[in-house]
């Protein structure tokens, strides 16, 4: 029970960071984003449809992401999300905060275990 609730908290806090960092290099569509999160976390973190897309729309609304329909020949069109200029700045500041947090946690846990 405890681990599950911790996982939920983690997901909530980090979900935005994860999505923003995944589209930093290049625009990706929703399914691709969800697959990448699943793969890179070794299956530990998974976003289902009912929470992924609302999240994307929220980030888009804040102006951090920009979605655009792209058609490729022989395929149905997909919506690709790219990081906006503002989103890039937000991501940078989130990452900085995250690093400080992790460093802080590590210091505490290492001191206890030493």
């Amino acid at each position, binding site marked *: 029970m405890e681990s599950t609730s911790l996982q939920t908290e983690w997901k909530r806090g980090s979900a935005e960071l994860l999505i923003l960092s995944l589209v930093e290099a290049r625009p990706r*569509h*929703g*399914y691709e984003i*969800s697959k990448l999160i699943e793969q890179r976390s070794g299956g530990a973190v998974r976003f*289902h*449809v*009912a*929470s*992924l*897309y*609302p999240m994307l*729309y*929220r980030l888009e*609304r804040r102006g951090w992401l920009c979605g655009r329909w792209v058609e490729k020949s022989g395929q*149905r*069109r*997909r*919506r690709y999300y790219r990081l906006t200029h503002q989103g890039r700045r937000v991501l940078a500041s989130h990452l900085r905060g995250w690093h400080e947090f992790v460093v802080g946690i590590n210091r505490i846990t290492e001191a206890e275990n030493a």
Partner: protein
Amino acid sequence: MPEWNPEILRRLAPLKLSPAREGEIAEEIAQHLEDRYHELLVTGQSEDAAFRTAIDELKGEDLLARSLRSIESDLYREPVALGKGGSNLFAGILQDVHYAFRMMRKSPGFTAVAVLTLALGIGANTAIFTIVDAVLLRPLPFKDPSTLVMLNESLKSLGYPEVPASPPDIAVIERTQRSFTSLGAFQNKDFDFSGSGEPERVTAASVSASIFPMLGVQPLLGRTYTEQEDKPGTRVAVLSYGLWQHRYAGRANIVGQIIDLDRIPYTVIGVMPKNFQFPLPGPKHNNEPAELWVPRAFTPVELQGWGDGYNDGVLARLKPGVTFNQAQADAALVTAEIKRVYPPAMVKIFNGATPAIGLAPLHQAVAGPVEALLLVLMAAVGLVLLIACANVATLLLSRAASRSKEIAIRTALGASRMVLIRQMLTESFVLALAGGALGILIAFWGTSGLLSLVPSSLALPHSASLGGWVLAFVATVSCLTAVVFGIAPAFQVSSVHLQGSLQESGRSGTPSRARHRLQGIFVAAEFALAMILLIGAGLLIRSFSKLLETNPGFRPDHVLTMSVALPFDAYTKAPEVRQFYEQAIERIASLPGVKSVAASNDLPLDSADNEVLQVEGRPDSAPIMTVTWALGDYFSTMGIPLIKGRFFTPEDRIGSQPVAVINEETAKLLWPGENALGKRLGHPFPNMMRTIVGIVGDVNDGPLGSKPGPHFYLPYLQLPDDYIEYGNLIIPLNLALRTSTDPGSLTSAVVAQIHSLDPQLAVAKIRTMEQGMASSIAAPKFNTFVLGLFAFLALFLATIGIYGVLAYGVAQQTHEIGIRMALGAQRRDVMQLILVQGARLALVGVAIGLLAAFGLTRLMSSLLYGISASDPLTFAAVAIVLVAVALLACYIPAHRAMRVDPMVALRYE
């Protein structure tokens, strides 16, 4: 392949998204589920299991909607195209309005100019409509006013298309008519009102007892009089609220008090409520709201005075079910009856004619005289509003250039043309409503300002309230305005070519040719409209100056006039009356600064005493002439020139040879090519022929500008006693004096001289003849001022319009101008290029305006004097002025274009 959409749409349904947004989300999620499904199939799952696992991603029935609700609530509700239907139409419009406000805030300069322009247009319309509403649209403040009619008489063959009624004829009408439930006569008259405080002349009305119940207005205090009291000798009076307040400070015990009218005691029996007004202003005669009312009480002498006393207004109420046309047919029967009973002697004097009865709805009789003026003003402000619309439309088009990229992006993002047009029109509506709101304020001040200038000779109210109708009018006009100025830009803007606009990079490209063309059309239209208005105002100004140039036939400078009425009960015999006036003249003449003094029944510009006369030796001829009884140095006091013969002398009195003086017009009319001196002319009753001893110049009997008619002057001292005492009424005389100093400064000295003869006399209507002249032309002056004001507004707006378009054009063409200059164009050429652009627009507008004005100005011919409605001088002058103003407005942008530095202009690129 599984169907994902039904599953997704069912879950999105509670959000009530716009169809477009809903489809977009469903498409994206369906794609996701599809990808997941294929992936699961690859891992070896059965189709069934893969489908269920994929659907499981949606996590139950309501999670998706719950997560989306806060995000989608107000963002992507795309406006629904009009006519397409949809649950969120209202939300769409709200969003449009929201957007419109944002756009307005973004360009405050544009917003201010557009809103102000519209406010001026709408405000002017509202102000005039408020007056139209009060005068033409609002029912009169009486019971069932639509069934009230006014009766009049006419003697068309004698040149009287409409006169008030005569008592014997009124008796015939009462006896014969079958169309009216009740009928009553009324007549304005003045009384010397005394008893408490200074003697004062009050405007009163003698009114039949039937009139009060007919109007259906109850007295505030006491009662009105009965039919039994409406008899000669009954001395009762009903006061107006104003007189009650002003003379008695609203004392409650006024009913039963005795007041003195012309030194005869009357009992006050009632007070009418505050807003009661009767007679109403507007009709030609008996049009002064009374301060008190007394019974009309026809005397036996009056009722036998056939062919005389055409002085009574007649008000009647139609029987229920009787139409106006039926009453008119009935009036023809009454006319026939009058013809039957008319005394043959009178018929003979009238050249075989008898009076005919005519009728008009009361409302028409009251509002008719100002209808033409109000319609012309309404048309004028309508044109001003159209010009304002054209102005705002050109502004919108100019702004459209800077918005084309925005429009292109929205189009690229899927906004349909319909959606864009609706968005543009919403912006127009918001602008128009803002203009309307400000316009109400302008109208509020404008109306009271305008009405405070209304001269008393014009039957317009002195105040008018902004009623419900007016607000409805503003709302309607604002909405119509929005459509008029918004529709063309909306269609033009929404037809933006995607690629072109997106390719136009940051720098300003060449403006769309179509847009510029449309702006040109609007500016030309503005000039055409302004042209019409300016010609209208120009015609009024020209006609007004003609009016000022007219020779009134007398010298109005240095003349003071006043009216003195001798009450019959104090001056019962003619010799007393004569003595009073002779002594008054003598005493006033002794004052320093007085050159000459006279007394007369009528004064120039205000002569209303028309009488039927007879020419000796011509029994068939009965000229109707203005008659003036003169006492003292009348002609030299008035400055009326002698053409032939002599003026009256003090020796022209009872006992000497009866003499008369006529004007040139009479001489021409009655004795063309002959010497009129020595000819004889006079009243048929009593039969007294007078020898003409002098011919004087023609004088304006009516208001300035009216054509002088035949005029008959006779010495007051030769009037027989019974004429002076006739009908127990002494005709009030006007005293007039010519001074060597400022005539106004002598007022108190003159009044003191009159009071030295009779301290109880009221001296009324004290004014200089120049003031009389001014009030005589007050109505045309007001017309000219108001139309001139609107024409100026039109010119102002049109000038701003042409300036704006050219200035914008120059700004847009800086690059082009730079290239031209780099290629060797002279500065003069550039200036000429711009000026020609502007002049072309103005000339097209002026040409169209000339044609339209030619057709429209004849509507105002009734307001003109001395010039035709197509006066070529006015047309030409206005055209020149308008083109000159246009060139001036173009000069500034042209000058700016001339100063374009080719290096700078090209570097901008």
